[in-house]
């Protein structure tokens, strides 16, 4: 007789506990079998390590410990490679295997409550694993180093075959192909075709292209390559594109407000849109639409042409009279006759009409396309185009709200302002494109190292402000010290230029009664003070209680 899911879950949980209990012992065996710092590493030991890694990969994956499984997969692959090649493993290979073994052994402190018993497995995404196909070892090593600076786990492959084997074991979050040494993208297209044939969803791909003409671009679009980037270019530009692809499935859902004459129909439409991943709200009544808009802040409005109190067109006109909603996409569902009538009126068609009944997939597509447009526009307005951080104005609006929240809840809130040391000299010496690249690199690094709840804004020039909720100044100082070290180690610039840069930081805390302007002023003064201390100085405002 077939049992229940609960029964299976209970029994799996017991097995999982056993796995966790045995894990330290197995990991210490990994450490014992890895290549020694000096001396011989017999094939039998390597074979044992390979089997152990294989077995850990499988069990960890089965029990939902994706990170651990990914680390074991890497160790298995490196070891298998060393075993199957003709000669003895090189010193470099042994070091790489040793590193992979250490990384696996260090993963032993897993939280037994964290992982579910059975999960869809995308460990490559979680670990930001990135594969690079590059036949030039020099370029490959250089790119791998750069990508690592930005928090990716990059791994280079010289051949398509080696890449495909690695992908079969662990799907990366993105595959990057260096075709910059080639006239045509044919090899890259062949690789992507082999990579993504029968794969759904496909792995996002980026091509660094040697030539950027329209013919090459068209060919890569047809092959399904997501990003075409003429190379060499700024590495920060590459990272920006990679980050977009890597976070595709983390983006917020589109928000759709639904208003229908019949409440049951409204609910049904909302449910249909929710099923395809959108977030919806059903508006209670046409005459209260303004409150609902302010409260829900939708990306688009979907409504009936005929409503109890007014028509959809009238309501859309009213909504557009308010500047904040003047470009809210509105989609009106109307009878076929009504759609004809509107077309015949021939006036400026601010709104889109769909004739009822609308097939579900058509409605989903129409709504998604319009909501997406609005969201893009919204981010473009609030974001500084160079760095992707909030604009000064957008930051100012948010800082007020955060201050009020911190005061109300009596929680700490810290503001840091930083700027790049001797930025003007850097621009003058190497040109503005290099300076822009440095600024963008800093913005990217900050976005990676900070939490989602932290606010980042560009205050013009090379000045960046960061608002850190739930953070006291000492914590912020530690945090920025780590970021300072990482940033100083980065190398910027593209073709022929290699520069490094530092930044200085001023930190100030929110206090009862302190306004936003006062807080910003305090952080700026502290930054000025830091600047006197030399490159890379971090200062915390001396509190005057």
């Amino acid at each position: 007789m077939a049992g229940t899911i609960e029964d299976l879950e209970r029994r799996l949980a017991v097995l999982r506990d056993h796995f966790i209990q045995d894990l330290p012992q197995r990991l210490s065996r990994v450490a014992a079998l890895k290549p020694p710092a000096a001396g011989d590493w017999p094939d039998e030991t390597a074979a044992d390590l390979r089997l152990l890694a294989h077995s850990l990969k499988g069990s960890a994956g089965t029990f939902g410990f994706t990170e651990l499984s990914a680390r074991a997969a890497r160790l298995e692959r490196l070891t298998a490679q060393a075993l199957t090649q003709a000669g003895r493993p090189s010193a470099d290979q042994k070091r790489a295997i040793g590193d992979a073994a250490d990384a696996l052994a260090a993963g032993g402190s897993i939280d037994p409550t964290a992982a579910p018993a059975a999960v869809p497995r995308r460990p490559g995404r979680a670990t930001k694993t990135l594969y690079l196909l590059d036949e030039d070892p020099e370029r490959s090593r250089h790119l791998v180093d750069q990508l690592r600076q930005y928090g990716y786990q990059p791994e280079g492959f010289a051949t398509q075959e080696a890449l495909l084997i690695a992908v079969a074991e662990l799907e990366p979050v993105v595959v990057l192909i260096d075709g910059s040494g080639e006239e045509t993208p044919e090899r890259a297209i062949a690789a992507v075709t082999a990579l993504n044939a029968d794969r759904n969803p496909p792995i996002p791909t980026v091509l660094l292209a040697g030539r950027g003409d329209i013919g090459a671009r068209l060919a890569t679009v047809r092959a399904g390559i997501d990003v075409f980037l003429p190379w060499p270019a700024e590495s920060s530009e590459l990272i920006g594109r990679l980050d977009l692809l890597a976070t595709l499935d983390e983006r917020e859902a589109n928000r759709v407000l639904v208003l229908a004459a019949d409440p049951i129909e409204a609910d049904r439409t909302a449910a249909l849109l929710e099923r395809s991943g959108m977030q919806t709200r059903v508006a209670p009544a046409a005459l209260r639409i303004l409150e609902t808009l302010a409260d829900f802040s939708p990306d688009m409005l979907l409504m009936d042409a005929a409503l109890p109190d007014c028509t959809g067109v009238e309501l859309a006109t009213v909504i557009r009279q308010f500047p904040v909603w003047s470009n809210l996409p509105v989609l009106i569902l109307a009878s076929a006759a009504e759609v004809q009538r509107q077309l015949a009126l021939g006036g400026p068609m601010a709104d889109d009409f769909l004739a009822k009944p609308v097939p579900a997939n058509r409605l989903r597509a129409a709504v998604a396309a319009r909501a997406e447009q609005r969201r893009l526009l919204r981010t473009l307005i609030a974001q500084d185009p160079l760095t992707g951080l909030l604009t000064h104005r957008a930051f100012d609006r948010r800082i007020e709200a955060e201050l009020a929240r911190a005061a109300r809840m009596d929680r700490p809130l810290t503001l840091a302002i930083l700027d790049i040391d001797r930025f003007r000299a850097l621009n003058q010496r190497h040109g503005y494109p290099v300076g822009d690249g440095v600024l963008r690199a800093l913005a990217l690094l900050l976005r990676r190292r900070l939490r989602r709840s932290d606010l980042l804004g560009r205050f013009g020039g090379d000045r960046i402000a960061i608002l850190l909720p739930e953070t006291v100044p000492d914590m912020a100082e530690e945090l920025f010290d780590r970021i300072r070290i990482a940033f100083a180690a980065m190398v910027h610039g593209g073709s022929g230029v290699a520069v490094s840069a530092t930044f200085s930081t001023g930190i100030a805390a929110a206090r009862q009664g302190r306004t936003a302007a006062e807080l910003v002023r305090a952080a700026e003064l502290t930054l000025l003070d830091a600047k006197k201390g030399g490159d890379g100085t971090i200062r915390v405002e001396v509190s005057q209680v």
Partner: protein
Amino acid sequence: MSERFPPLSRILYVDDEPDIREVAKIALEVMGGFTVEACESGESALAEALAFRPDLILLDVMMPRMDGPETFSALRRTPGLETVPIVFFTAKAQRAEVQALLELGALDVLAKPFDPMSVAQTVSEIWMRHHGWDD
């Protein structure tokens, strides 16, 4: 409901990895209601298959000593086991390898790690397809 094909009831699961063996056995028994025997090597699979007479054998590809494909050939050469359907499990779900395993005569190739919640369903579907039911 009319029986359009022989029911799947007895499954032999072969895998050197004890954790996964246990998970597979429990998952197939609990969710699929199958009678499952599990063994840890290709060598033991031969003896077990003769004694247990499974309807279907699930075979891990990578095992020490006698691997999945070798076990497959040995089973095929054993009188009484020449035609028992065999499905492979592999962690290297690369197309070339899958193709090679299918050409060997495997019924299907499944990826490891598998989802314990759905593996029984997947195996049932393979069984139904094998018997010409593909609705």
